């Protein structure tokens, strides 16, 4: 029963996307949103049914059709449904449905209305194909297909120079990750002879001691190389340093997709992938150390950048980067279930924060600069409360969803003993303070304080032409119910989902048989479980205990400091910026990644391309060899031309000699 329905889960959004995409211009506007909402809503209902079935033990792993066979190698399209997949399906379709509804309000006046709905439905299809896959080939399909839709949506307003710069950048940086990912898949196929998850995972343990030589006959552990290459793919998609550079720029896309793609779902694909590959990553502690270190760097240093931003969406974008770093750290600590748990809670509260930001942006007439905002709680009551809930969840306030997942990450890292865990522990703990600081900086500036647009000139500094803004005498208005309803529906899980889900997901049997942990080598998760059952017992116990921990103290002081800085003494942050101008410059330039990439990779490729073209192709091959040959022929023919005297007896003589020579030659062969 359920098995026959599986195919419809990705197919419904695809069909809706295809109809709206192909015929959208001829259909009425409401058809665009009703069709896609029906498609995604249907997928959500079916996903929920599948989820319910998996809770009572349903699993499914079968091929749908053979994509291609070549020799003994068999590539298929198929589904693997287990608890991990089912949970991802529900999260993806739920957030997607919220975003669909929200979009009715957000894109109301946009001429590309139906195109937008078609894209986000197509995205839902691609993301579902990614999470439901039972093999690496289809995973890679979904992986790149979500990248495509991300490209299309970042560049949705394709007349804006910043948007079309950002979407190209996003696609290419992701391609750098996919480059590693594909090589990793290649190693998997070469050594296991299959791309089917089940076959690969069962073959992997036997390869634990296999080595390959990459440089100068130094043996490298095959699994280490494979896992790091696969993780490079995750670094692209999940925006880990140094492949994070595309995510802040992706904010050029419309806000609904920032919530759906660049916060809740697509960017977490890398986290999902590594968790799915836990049987491989568990074999290589070196790879896990690498994962953890990269995650820790991202969690700490990207959070710091969040403090510097004045664009409401960019603050949240850097927060997303930092939270993705947290998830990655959890993966490195072999706490895969914790990473997935944080992925889920984050999906809800971060989607909520982005949609809240979108609501503010709409009300402010597309002004995104927080320096023009203030006291919006008066005008945006629903947005205000839900954003506060989202922020509290984000900074890990006990009882909120984010608390359970983030605190578990911190504890897991504490118990981890692999190289790099010391730094990672520092990073995630320090990150708590930073997260609280930038989150509430944003919250206080936007929702409290003075109504700054009354004084501000709407068109200041780096305003793009699409930033309209309010005039000083205007009052902002909160958008209607299509916007507010998704905020409320997302706020509910942002509060309760952690409390409800932590026990089964982390300490129960939910991921049994799905996630593999080598408890002897990487005991962090075991310690964490033990700690929970021994000391905390219940989710409430954990939350109450949470009030007396270092992370809570740090979060509280982060909130306190931001209140003091931005509500009480706004002169202090300005003074600090002046006093520590070097640090300020480094942060403002985002550690220089962008300018380095621009100068080194972009200009470098063009430079080499130009030299190869102008010197090797044009001068050497064409100039010296091809045209040189032509010139030589011309010269030779100048000499030969003298033989063409025009005298018949010259030709006749030549013919006789020729015939004589030929006959002699042929006689020899024949005789």
């Amino acid at each position, binding site marked *: 029963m359920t098995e026959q329905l599986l195919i419809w889960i990705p197919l419904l959004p695809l069909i809706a996307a295809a109809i709206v995409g192909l015929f959208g211009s001829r259909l009425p506007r409401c058809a665009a949103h009703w069709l896609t909402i029906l498609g995604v809503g249907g997928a959500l209902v079916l996903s929920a049914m599948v989820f319910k079935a998996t809770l009572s033990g349903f699993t499914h792993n079968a091929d749908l*059709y*053979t*994509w*291609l*066979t*070549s*020799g003994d*190698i068999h590539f298929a399209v198929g589904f693997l449904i287990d608890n991990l997949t089912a949970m991802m399906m529900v999260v993806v379709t739920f957030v997607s449905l919220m975003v669909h509804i929200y979009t009715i309000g957000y894109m109301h006046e946009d001429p590309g209305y139906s195109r937008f709905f078609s894209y986000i439905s197509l995205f839902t299809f691609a993301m579902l194909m990614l999470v439901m896959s039972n093999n690496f*080939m289809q995973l*890679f*399909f979904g*992986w*790149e*297909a979500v990248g*495509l839709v991300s*490209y*299309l949506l970042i*560049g949705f307003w*394709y*007349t804006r*120079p910043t948007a*079309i*710069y950002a979407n*190209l950048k996003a*696609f*290419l940086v992701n*391609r*750098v990750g*996919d*480059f590693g990912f*594909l*090589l990793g*898949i*290649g*190693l998997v*196929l*070469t050594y296991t002879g299959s791309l089917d998850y089940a076959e690969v995972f069962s073959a992997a343990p036997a390869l634990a001691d296999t080595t*390959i030589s*990459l440089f100068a006959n130094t043996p490298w552990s095959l699994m280490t190389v494979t896992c790091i290459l696969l993780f490079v793919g995750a670094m692209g998609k999940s925006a880990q340093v140094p492949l994070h550079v595309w995510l802040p720029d992706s904010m050029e896309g419309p806000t609904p997709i920032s919530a759906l793609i660049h916060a809740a779902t697509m960017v977490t694909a890398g986290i999902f992938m590594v968790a799915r590959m836990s049987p491989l990553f568990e074999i290589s502690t070196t790879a896990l150390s690498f994962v953890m270190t990269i995650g820790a760097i991202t969690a700490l240093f990207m959070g710091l950048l969040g403090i510097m931003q004045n664009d409401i969406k960019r603050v949240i974008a850097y927060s997303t980067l930092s939270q993705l770093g947290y998830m990655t750290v959890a993966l490195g600590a072999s706490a895969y279930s914790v990473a997935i748990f944080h992925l889920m809670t984050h999906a809800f509260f971060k989607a909520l924060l982005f949609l809240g930001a979108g609501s503010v942006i709409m009300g402010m007439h597309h002004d995104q600069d927080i320096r023009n905002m203030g006291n919006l709680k008066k005008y945006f009551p629903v947005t205000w409360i839900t954003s506060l809930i989202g922020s509290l969840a984000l900074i890990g306030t006990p009882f909120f969803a984010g608390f359970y997942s983030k605190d578990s990450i911190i504890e897991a890292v504490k118990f981890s003993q692999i190289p790099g865990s010391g730094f990672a522990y520092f990073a995630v703990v320090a990150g708590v303070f930073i997260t609280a600081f930038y989150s509430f900086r944003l919250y206080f500036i936007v929702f409290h304080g003075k109504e700054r647009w009354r004084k501000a000139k709407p068109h200041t500094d780096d305003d793009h032409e699409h930033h309209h803004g309010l005039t000083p005498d205007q009052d902002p208005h909160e958008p209607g119910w299509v916007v507010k309803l998704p905020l409320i529906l997302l706020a509910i899980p942002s509060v309760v989902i952690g409390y409800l889900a932590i026990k089964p997901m982390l300490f129960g049997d939910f991921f049994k048989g799905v996630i593999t942990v080598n408890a002897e080598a990487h005991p962090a998760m075991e310690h964490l479980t033990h700690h929970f059952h021994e000391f905390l017992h219940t989710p409430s116990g954990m939350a109450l205990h949470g009030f007396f921990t270092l992370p809570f103290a740090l979060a509280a002081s982060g909130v306190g400091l931001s209140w003091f800085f931005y509500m009480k003494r706004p002169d202090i942050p300005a003074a600090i910026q002046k006093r520590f101008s070097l640090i300020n410059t480094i942060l403002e330039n985002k550690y220089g990644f962008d300018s380095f990439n621009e100068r080194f990779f972009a200009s470098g*490729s*063009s430079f*080499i*391309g*130009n030299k*190869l*073209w102008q010197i*090797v*192709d044009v001068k050497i*091959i*064409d100039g010296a060899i*091809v045209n040189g*040959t*032509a010139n030589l022929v011309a010269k030779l023919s100048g000499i030969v031309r003298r033989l063409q005297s025009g005298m018949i007896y010259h030709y006749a003589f030549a013919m006789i000699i020729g015939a004589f020579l030929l006959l002699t030659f042929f006689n020899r062969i024949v005789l």
Partner: protein
Amino acid sequence: MLANYTLSLSIWVPILAGLLVLAAGNDSRASMTRWLALLGGIAGFLVTLPLYFQFNIAEGGFQFQEATYWIPAFQIYYHLGVDGISVPLILLTSFTTVICIIASWEVIKKSIAQYMACFLIMSGLMIGVFSALDSILYYVFWESMLIPMFLVIGKWGGQNRVYATIKFFLYTLLGSLLMLVAFIYLFHKTGSFNIVKYHDVVLPLNVQIFIFIAFFMAFAVKIPMWPLHTWLPDAHVEAPTAGSVVLAAVMLKLGGYSFLRFAMPIAPDASHYLSGYMIALSLIAILYIALVALVQKDMKKLIAYSSISHMGFVTLGFFLFSQLGLEGAIVQMISHGFISAAMFLCVGVLYDRMHSREIASYGGVANTMPVFAAFAVFFAMANSGLPGTSGFVGEFMVILASVEYDFWVAFIAATTLIFGASYTLWMVKRVFYGEAANKKVAALKDLTRREFAMLGVLAALTLGIGVYPQVITGMTQATSERFLNHMTTSKLPSVGM
């Protein structure tokens, strides 16, 4: 015995149709001429369909064989036959011809009959190349198909067409003559011009190397492989749209096909011996040419370089000697046929309206031609190897196969993920996105029905093969198994002989 004349029909129907168009067509009866040509093209396509539907996919050898004496004195036969490698290419050829005729519909206004006839005749001759099993017959088709191409570029081409045709001629002549020498040598060895017999002839390694190089000169020019590639960008730039389409979609594949038909099976030991060099040249094509493509300012040149880079995967796949690599290379040839054709058609759509191929003349085309922009982005993505499109399948297979061969070979080949996307999408950005760059762009009209139909069919095929590539690999499976078996058997004279 040989009751099936499918192959003869496939060759002669388009040629006769071409002659008919030439005889009956006239610029004063333009419409009739065009319809006649289209009917001829469609007939030519229909007669090739039995090759697909009646093909026995379990059989790795030659099917649909026909053989009669042609020049008995020299043992030259009119001998035709196809296997799993040539059938997809023949279908690609006859299909592309239909597209070319539609693409030239309103664009060509002078000497319509002659122009259309060139494409129809060229189609028959190219199918002849793909199905000839007699080397002299093959050689005749191989050389004669160049004539209509010369005419198309030389008569209907751009400003610098004379230089382009001469360059094209110099390159191909040089290669083809060496190939003829190889044929004559093999004739002396075997007393026959039968290609199948050539496959079994025992040859010492040094002779194999000479033969391989002689063939290499002919085929590497066609594909083209670095450093024999510089004729292609010039030829493309000067050729009219349909000329570029045939050139990219079919003619380049003649080189790839011929490697599999001649150079490799006749000289398998030399192929193994020289495979390192061949792989190196393929990788140069993939990486170096991609970088060169990145800095092109002319759209056609950019796509031409992109073609060379993509054909690098074809030669790379051949010389890995694995089934995945070989079939990947074949899929890549077919896929590139669709995608490059579509890309050149897209440039044609713009050129017909603006008479410029310079990227800098454009900007913001999506504002005025949204439907066209959607197609262009789709084909650009296919050209960047996006999964779900046919462009992904071949590259994916070849890269996976090359990891097995050597990690670093795969490493260089996989850079196409980055650079292929870079040059293609950067061009898309500059041409299609942004505000309308000038008044001419602002006045553009979106696709006509004719253009929509062409691009729509190509998009459907690109997508179809991406979603279900087994359509192709099902055909090539048995043949490529047989081919690889043949390649692993040494043809060196054994010591005892």
